[in-house]
């Protein structure tokens, strides 16, 4: 396994109380695999990955393990963790405009991971950076290296981010909603780019998104999260054809289909949960049509259903 997250708990202390963002989550990513993490805003999908990499602010408390390359990222020295970040594990973020440093030239930002993690001279690093830009489809790379991020369009900025992430040829790329801030045509280009780059490198990818369509096109396996828990996980086709959790089913139904033109859109009844409250049992209970009494009592626990598919629903069904 490339990355193994084991029993991750993450809480934030805020003035409103303690927010339980991730509650006992475990997952793993195989080498070369594309794993999708799906959920609403606030489900904890991004927090999970930030926790694993130690990128959360001091108000967060994380327990658990995140094994990578034999190192437990959550219980190791900072210097050991930093040796892996930007080197063997890379991350790209949602809004490339704010995620790139506006005060530094693109070239300087690109060569930084190389100069940090490799014994390489500056001119060699710059050559490599130009090449990385070209690989992501940016022409005139030498001139572009000397420019600042605000001189690029949104799509180009994301390409720069991708180039920066992949310049050290990491084994694992974590992509946190990389296309959400882009418009549709650019989205498609970026997704295609990621797919191509992954194919040529044998790299694992964790793709965080709320968009089931992207999941369908990009991911081998999917993890569905709700209220800081994994509610279902399995191979992508299986999750689309035979979802085994009412929430997954609800997500499917919420996708607008052309055939439904004219009819009111389906929304899952109820509201997302208040994350300051720790519930016992299934957090989806208040909104679930199939809820039973025992749903509120039993602790969340993934059980296998079918081929490599796991669900936390004790009813093991969906509407």
């Amino acid at each position, binding site marked *: 396994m490339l990355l193994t997250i084991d029993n991750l708990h993450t809480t934030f202390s805020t003035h409103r109380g303690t927010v339980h963002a991730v509650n006992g989550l475990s997952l793993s990513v195989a080498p070369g695999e594309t794993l999708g993490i799906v959920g609403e805003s606030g489900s904890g999908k991004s927090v999970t990955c930030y926790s694993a*990499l130690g990128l959360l602010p001091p108000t967060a408390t994380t327990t658990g393990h995140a094994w990578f390359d034999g190192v437990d990222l959550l219980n190791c020295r900072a210097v050991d963790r930093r040796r892996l970040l*930007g080197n063997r594990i890379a*991350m790209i*973020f949602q809004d490339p405009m704010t995620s790139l440093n*506006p005060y530094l030239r693109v070239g300087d930002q690109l060569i*930084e991971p190389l100069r*940090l993690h490799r014994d390489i001279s500056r001119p060699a690093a710059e050559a490599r950076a130009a090449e990385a830009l070209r690989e992501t489809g940016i022409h005139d790379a030498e001139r572009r290296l000397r420019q600042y991020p*605000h001189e690029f369009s949104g799509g180009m900025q994301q390409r720069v*981010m991708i180039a*920066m992430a992949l310049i050290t040829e990491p084994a694992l790329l974590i992509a946190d909603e990389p296309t959400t801030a882009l418009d549709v045509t650019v989205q498609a280009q970026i997704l295609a780019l990621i797919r191509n780059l992954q194919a040529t490198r044998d790299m694992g990818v964790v793709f965080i998104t709320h968009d089931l369509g992207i999941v369908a096109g990009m991911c081998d396996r999917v993890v569905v999260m709700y209220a800081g828990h994994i509610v279902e996980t399995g191979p992508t086709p299986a999750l689309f054809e035979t979802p085994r959790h009412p929430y997954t089913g609800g997500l499917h139904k919420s996708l607008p289909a052309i055939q439904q033109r004219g009819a009111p859109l389906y929304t899952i009844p109820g509201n997302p949960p208040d994350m300051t409250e720790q519930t016992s049992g299934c957090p989806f209970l208040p909104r679930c049509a199939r809820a039973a009494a025992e749903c509120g009592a039993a602790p969340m626990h993934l059980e296998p259903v079918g081929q490599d598919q796991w669900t936390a629903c004790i009813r093991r069904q969906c509407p």
Partner: protein
Amino acid sequence: MLRFIRSRLLEAIPVLFIIATLTFVMIRLAPGGPFSDERNVSPATLAKLEAHYHLDQPLPVQYLTWWRKTLTGDLGPSMRYGAHSVNEIIGHTLPVSLELGILAITFALVIGLGAGIVAGLKPNTVTDYAPMSLAMIGICIPTFVIGPLLLLLFALRWQIFSVSGWDTATDRILPAVTLGAPYGAYIARLTRAGMLEVLNQDFIRTARAKGVSEFRVIYKHALKGGLLPVIAFLGPATAGLLSGSFVVEEIFDIPGLGQHFVNAAFNRDYTMIMGTVLLYAVMIVVFNLLVDIVQAALNPRLRLE
């Protein structure tokens, strides 16, 4: 960049022109003149005195004469200290005031940046409260309290420094600290706020995700953006330093330009007033321009203009 500098300098010319003209008019409107004193001067003597300084000529003539002489670099004789010209007095005192100002702002930057960065790194802890409380003192207690207080302790009680004057190197310390203290305090607070804001930005998270050490995150990624509010503050700060130096010069008996600037107004020393006002206006324009250049150097998004 050159175009930017040139356009700013061109903008400065009408500003200076207006300042000089307004000053010229206002000082003559103010009641009293350079020669009024408790002992009355006879009208004949007064007339002669005024003629000596060309004050008997019609205002537009005086105005043009002043411009003509100024543009050749001659600011005229001081109306109060007749044996000395304005050029001479400025020539002797400006370097002193400049030295004091530069030392003060250096002190302010060193202390302010240091304290602000330290505080910004660990907000809401002791390393935040301590420097920020001291900063509060620097802002709230005025110069004419801090100065004598420092003198009381360091010059009179513990006799470490001399009580007045500008002779030895150590004489510079207390005045620079007194003048720089409120600016250091503001800079500390601005730096802290700037750092906190920058450190919360997404691109800092990206840097950390690249495995960059905390030290490098601060010094390479955060500092440029974090310092922007401080740089912006430095422009108006120079104006404050120039005028604040008067109080410090009085307290420490420093032969600087600040005293002349203020006393010239009280003495209605027209030539001195015009000379010092014009000088200060030029300095403020130049400093603000420098600040703008530095800002553009730090923040590439400003260069779009």
